C-alpha cells in the first residue's frame, strides 16, 4: 500500500516536472475552450451548452494520448523492467497510474471550468453530479488508454492508435460534432463509442437534469472502463521486449472491444440512438401545439398584436442577433439530454402551466453572464424582454404532456399560443450558416446586389406569390429565402430581408403572424412546387433536399415572426 502511495505521488510529481506533459494536459484543453469560445462567440453559442464536449475532449486527450504515451515511453526505456526487480505487483503500478491520471484530468477540468466561468458561463446546474459523471467518464477513457498502452509497442504506435480512436470519436462519435448534426448512420456508429455517453452524461450535469437522466450513460462508461481496465491489466507487460504481437493473451483486447460493442447494442436495443431533430423544431416548445388538437381557439385580437408588437419591431428593419430570449428551456442542440425518445420527435417540453414559482424564478433577473442560458432550470434564466414569455421549462423527460391547446386552423392561432410554443432564443444566429440574415447596413457585392434587385423587382410578379391561400403563399415566399440558404448561394444572407419586405406588403400583419406561426409548427405541410418556379427569380439551381428546405422555411418564418412580435429586437 505504501508502495502504491509512493508511486502515485511520484507519478504526479514527475508529471508536473514534465513541461510537455503539462502543456498537453492543461494548456491544450484550455486552448480548445478558448478557441471554441472565440470561434463561436459571434454566433452567441453559449459555453454552457458545450461543456460536455469540452470536458470530454480534455479527458479523451489525456487518456488516449497522455496516459499511454507516458506508460509506453517508460516501458520502452526499461523503467518498468527496473520496477519488476522489486516486489511490485501489476496492480500497484496500474492503480497508482490510473489514480494519478484521474487527478490530472480532474485538475485540468477544474481549470477548464474556471476559465469557462470567467468567460461568463453560469455555474453548472448539478456540480456534485458533474463530479460523479466526470469520474465515470475518466474511468471509461482511462480504461481505453490502458488497453492502448498495452497494445502499442512504442510511442509512435501510441500516436497512430490514438489518432485512430481520437479523430473518429471527435467527428462521428458525438464529441466535437453534435450528434444531431450527424447523419443517421453516424449516430448509430456513435452509439458504439464511449465519447457520446461521456458528452451526454457531463452535459446533463452542466445544464440538464443531472444524473437522473444519465444512468445509461454512466452504465455504458462503467462497462467500457471496467473492460478496459481488466483487459489492460491482463495484457500488462513490464518489458518492451515482450512485443504485443508475440504475446499470448491478446484475446483480452476482444474483451475491451466486446464492451464497446455491448454498449452499442444495448443502446440500439433501447432505441435511444437517433437524436436528430430538425432545427426548426428546436424552437418549438410544445408538440401538442403542432398536432392541431381542437381546443380553445380565441382569435388573435388587434389589441394582442399591438401588445406583442410593443417593442416596436419594424419587420422590414435589419435583423439583430436572436437575443430576445423568452424562458430558458432545455437544450435541443448540440447535446440533448439523454433519454430523448428516438426518431425525430421535437423537444418534448411543455410549460408547466400554473407553476407560479417557476414563473417567478424564470422572470427573476438572476442571470450573471452575458450568455443566454437556454437549457438551465429557471433559476439560471435571463430576464425576459417580453413580459408575456414567462413559461418555465421543466425537464424534457419528466414534464407533464403539453396542454392540448393547439389551434385547429391557422386562423385560430392566438398570441398566447405563440408565446407558449415558440422559443426565439434557440434560433440559429443571423450571422451563422443556417438561415443567415445580413445586417441592414451591410452592402452586398455588386453582382449579388444586381441579383437581389432582380428578385425585388420580380417577386410581386412571381406566380407562386399569387396563390389564394395565405399560408401557402407565405410558404412559397419563404422558399425564395430558404433554397439559396440550403445551397449556400452568395445571395443567401440578403435575400431574406427582400422576402420579408414582400411578405409584409402582401399579407396583413395580424394574418401574417398567424400564418408564420402555423408554418413554424407545421413545416411538413403544404405544397412545395414553388421551388420549381424559383428559376423565374434567377434563384437556386435545382431542387434541394426538401426536408432541409422545409426546415429552413420554418426557421425563416420564426425569425420574421420574432421581428413582427418584438421578440427579436431591431438594430
Amino acid at each position, binding site marked *: 500500500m*505504501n*508502495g502504491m*502511495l*509512493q*508511486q502515485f505521488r*511520484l507519478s504526479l*510529481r*514527475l508529471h508536473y*516536472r*514534465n513541461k510537455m506533459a503539462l502543456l498537453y494536459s492543461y494548456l491544450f484543453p484550455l486552448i480548445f475552450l478558448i478557441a471554441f469560445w472565440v470561434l463561436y462567440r459571434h454566433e452567441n453559442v453559449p459555453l454552457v451548452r458545450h461543456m460536455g464536449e469540452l470536458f470530454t475532449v480534455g479527458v479523451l486527450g489525456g487518456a488516449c494520448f497522455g496516459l499511454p504515451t507516458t506508460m509506453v515511453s*517508460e516501458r520502452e*526505456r*526499461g*523503467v518498468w*523492467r*527496473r520496477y*519488476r*526487480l*522489486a*516486489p*511490485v*505487483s501489476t496492480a*500497484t503500478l496500474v492503480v497508482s497510474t490510473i489514480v494519478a491520471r484521474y487527478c490530472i484530468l480532474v485538475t485540468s477540468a477544474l481549470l477548464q471550468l474556471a476559465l469557462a466561468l470567467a468567460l461568463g458561463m453560469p455555474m453548472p446546474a448539478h456540480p456534485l453530479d458533474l463530479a460523479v459523471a466526470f469520474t465515470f467518464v475518466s474511468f471509461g477513457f482511462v480504461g481505453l488508454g490502458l488497453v492502448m498502452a498495452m497494445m502499442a509497442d512504442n510511442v509512435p504506435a501510441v500516436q497512430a492508435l490514438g489518432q485512430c480512436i481520437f479523430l473518429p470519436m471527435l467527428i462521428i462519435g458525438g464529441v466535437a460534432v453534435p450528434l444531431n448534426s450527424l447523419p443517421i448512420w453516424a449516430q448509430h456508429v456513435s452509439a458504439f463509442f464511449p465519447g457520446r455517453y461521456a458528452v451526454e452524461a457531463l452535459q446533463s450535469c452542466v445544464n440538464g437534469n443531472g444524473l437522473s437522466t444519465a444512468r445509461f450513460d454512466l452504465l455504458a462508461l462503467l462497462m467500457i472502463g471496467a473492460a478496459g481496465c481488466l483487459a489492460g491489466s491482463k495484457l500488462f507487460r513490464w*518489458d518492451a521486449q515482450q512485443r504485443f504481437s508475440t504475446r499470448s493473451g491478446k484475446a483480452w483486447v476482444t474483451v475491451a472491444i466486446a464492451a464497446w460493442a455491448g454498449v452499442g447494442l444495448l443502446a440500439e436495443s433501447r432505441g435511444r440512438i437517433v437524436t436528430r431533430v430538425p432545427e426548426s423544431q428546436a424552437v418549438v416548445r410544445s408538440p401538442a401545439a403542432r398536432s392541431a388538437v381542437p381546443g380553445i381557439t380565441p382569435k388573435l385580437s388587434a389589441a394582442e398584436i399591438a401588445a406583442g408588437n410593443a417593442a416596436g419591431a419594424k419587420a422590414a428593419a435589419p435583423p439583430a442577433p436572436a437575443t430576445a430570449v423568452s424562458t430558458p428551456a432545455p437544450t435541443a442542440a448540440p447535446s440533448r439530454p439523454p433519454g430523448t425518445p428516438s426518431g425525430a420527435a421535437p423537444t418534448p417540453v411543455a410549460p408547466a402551466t400554473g407553476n407560479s414559482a417557476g414563473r417567478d424564478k424564470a422572470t427573476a433577473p438572476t442571470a450573471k453572464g452575458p450568455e443566454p442560458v437556454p437549457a438551465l432550470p429557471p433559476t439560471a434564466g435571463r430576464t425576459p424582454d417580453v413580459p408575456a414569455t414567462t413559461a418555465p421549462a421543466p425537464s424534457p423527460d419528466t414534464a407533464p404532456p403539453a396542454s392540448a391547446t393547439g389551434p385547429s386552423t391557422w386562423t385560430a392561432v392566438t398570441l398566447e399560443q405563440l408565446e407558449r410554443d415558440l422559443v426565439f432564443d434557440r434560433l440559429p444566429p443571423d450571422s451563422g450558416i443556417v438561415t443567415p440574415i445580413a445586417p441592414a447596413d451591410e452592402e452586398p457585392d455588386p453582382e449579388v446586389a444586381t441579383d437581389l434587385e432582380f428578385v425585388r423587382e420580380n417577386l410581386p410578379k412571381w406566380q407562386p406569390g399569387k396563390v389564394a391561400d395565405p399560408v401557402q403563399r407565405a410558404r412559397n415566399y419563404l422558399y425564395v429565402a430558404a433554397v439559396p440558404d440550403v445551397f449556400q448561394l452568395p445571395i443567401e444572407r440578403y435575400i431574406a430581408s427582400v422576402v420579408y419586405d414582400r411578405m409584409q406588403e402582401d399579407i396583413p400583419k395580424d394574418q401574417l403572424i398567424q400564418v408564420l406561426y402555423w408554418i413554424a409548427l407545421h413545416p411538413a405541410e403544404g405544397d412545395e412546387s414553388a421551388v420549381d418556379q424559383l428559376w423565374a427569380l434567377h434563384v437556386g439551381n435545382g431542387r434541394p433536399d426538401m426536408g432541409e428546405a422545409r426546415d429552413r422555411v420554418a426557421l425563416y418564418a420564426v425569425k420574421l415572426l420574432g421581428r413582427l412580435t418584438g421578440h427579436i429586437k431591431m438594430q
Partner: protein
Amino acid sequence: MAAKVVVQDLRKRYGDIQAAQGVSFKIDDGEIFGLLGPNGSGKTTTVECIIGLREPDAGEIEVCGIDARQRPQDVKQKIGAALQTTALQDKITPREALTLFGSFYRDSAEPQQMLDRFALGPKGDAPFDTLSGGQRQRLALALAFINKPELVFLDEPTTGLDPQSRRELHSEIARMKQDGHTVLLTTHYIEEAEQLCDRIAIIDRGRIVATGTPRELMSRSTAMQSVSLATVQPLDPLWLSALPGVDGLTCDHDRATFRTVEITRTLAELLKLLDARGIEIAELQVRKATLEDVFIELTGESLRD
C-alpha cells in the same frame, strides 16, 4: 556453508535459440560468484530467470531457501539486483528513486544512508537525466542495496563504463565481500572475474562448462605456458625444435615463440643451448596460462568475440 542459490538444470528457449540448456550451479553464503562467458552465452538469461525477470521453461531455482519459481515475490524481498543498464524516469532524483523503491519492500535502508555509501550525496536531488554513466551505475547499486539484501545480483555492472568508474565499482564490489554479502556477478571481462570472484562458473552456449576458484580453473587446465624470445644473433629453428616439450614453434631470424608444458626443463635446456652457441638474449618472456586460455581450451572459442 549454506547455499544461497541453487540452480538445477535450468532451461530457457527463445524460439529456435536455446539460451540455457541445463544450467546448474550453487552459490555459497558470503561468496562472490562470477558467471563468465561471452556475449550470448546465456549468462544474462540465467540471471534473469533467477531474479524473476523471466520464466524458465524448466529447472529448479532456490534462492535463500525459497523456491523462486513458486514464490518470486518472496525472493525479491531478499535480493537486490543491478542490471547492465538501469533506466529510470528522466526527472526522478536519486533520493526519490531510493524512497520509492524502498517503499516496495518490507524492510529498507534510509535513502540518505545509501546516497552517502554510494557517493551520491551531492547528486541526491539532481534529475536522473543529469547523472553521468558512473553515477547512474552507482545509483543502480544503491537501489540494489535499498532492501538490505541477503544476496545481490550484478549483471555486467561495468560494461560501458570508463576506467575510473570501473575501478570505483570494483572497489564497491570488494567492499560487498568485506561486508559479508553474497554476490552473483556476470561479466565477460576475465580480469574482472579473476580479481573479484571467489568462484567462477564458465558458461558457454547455455551450459556451465567449468566451475571453481580462478586458481583451480587455471591449475586444472592443461594449457601450456608460452615463451617468447628475442636474440642479438640469428636463431636456427632446428635448435629450438630439438628442445624438450616445445610445441607450436614459430621462428623468424632473431625472434621465436613456442609453448611448453615443462617450462622449467625447457628453459634450462634453452639457456644451455644459447650459452653454448654464444648467442646473447635480447628479451625473454614467459607467460603462464590465463583464464582466457582456460576458456579457449574448454570451449574452443575466444572469450572476446
